[in-house]
């Protein structure tokens, strides 16, 4: 997973099967030091994250487990999802 900041939202009416109504957020990734890395990624969100929130994003097959946990989620077209909304870090 990576850390990032929610900077926006992407709206798409025409989406792949299983993603109807799914919120898609724009996340600005952070580097190892916590600074913005300049990279952007689009991630699915089921935790109701808002613009400005610090989040962690899960990539790859793990992202599908956020949307629909279990073995029967391999038909979902999703490679990034918000896994946690960060309240603090040490």
């Amino acid at each position, binding site marked *: 997973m990576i850390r990032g*900041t*929610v*900077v*926006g*939202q*992407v*709206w*798409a*009416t*025409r*989406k*792949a*099967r299983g*993603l109807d109504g799914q919120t*898609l957020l*724009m996340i*600005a990734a952070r580097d190892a030091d916590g*600074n*913005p*890395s*300049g*990279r*952007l*990624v*689009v*991630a*699915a969100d089921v935790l109701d994250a808002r*613009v*400005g929130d610090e989040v962690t994003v899960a*990539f*790859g*097959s793990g*992202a*599908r487990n956020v949307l629909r946990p279990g073995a029967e989620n*391999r*038909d*979902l*077209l*999703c*490679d*990034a999802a918000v896994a946690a909304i960060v309240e603090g870090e040490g």
Partner: protein
Amino acid sequence: MILGRVIGEVWATRRDPRLAGAKLLVVRPHGLYEPAIGGRHLVATDDVHAGVGDEVIVCLGAPARASAGGNDTPVDAAILGVVDRVDFDAGLMATPGAGPGIKRPFSIDLTAGARR
């Protein structure tokens, strides 16, 4: 996922049988996005009837195999959706030394443009 623009289509008669019927589009990722495989363009399967000029969301890596009808497809990039609008607060991702940019939140309505 990343955002990009469809800039072309690829035709191929001789192809892996698991790709039979799959539409293959050429996508140029937007500047700030970087596909894991590098390069300035990629070829993605399309399940949502995107066309040249459309702004699209692209799913990369193993999850893209869900495209074209199965988990055993030889696919690593698939178009997940056609973008209608982007709401974006550029000030939140200001990078030190990145120079002047758009400081206020803005919204881009892509349905108002040159969509077919």
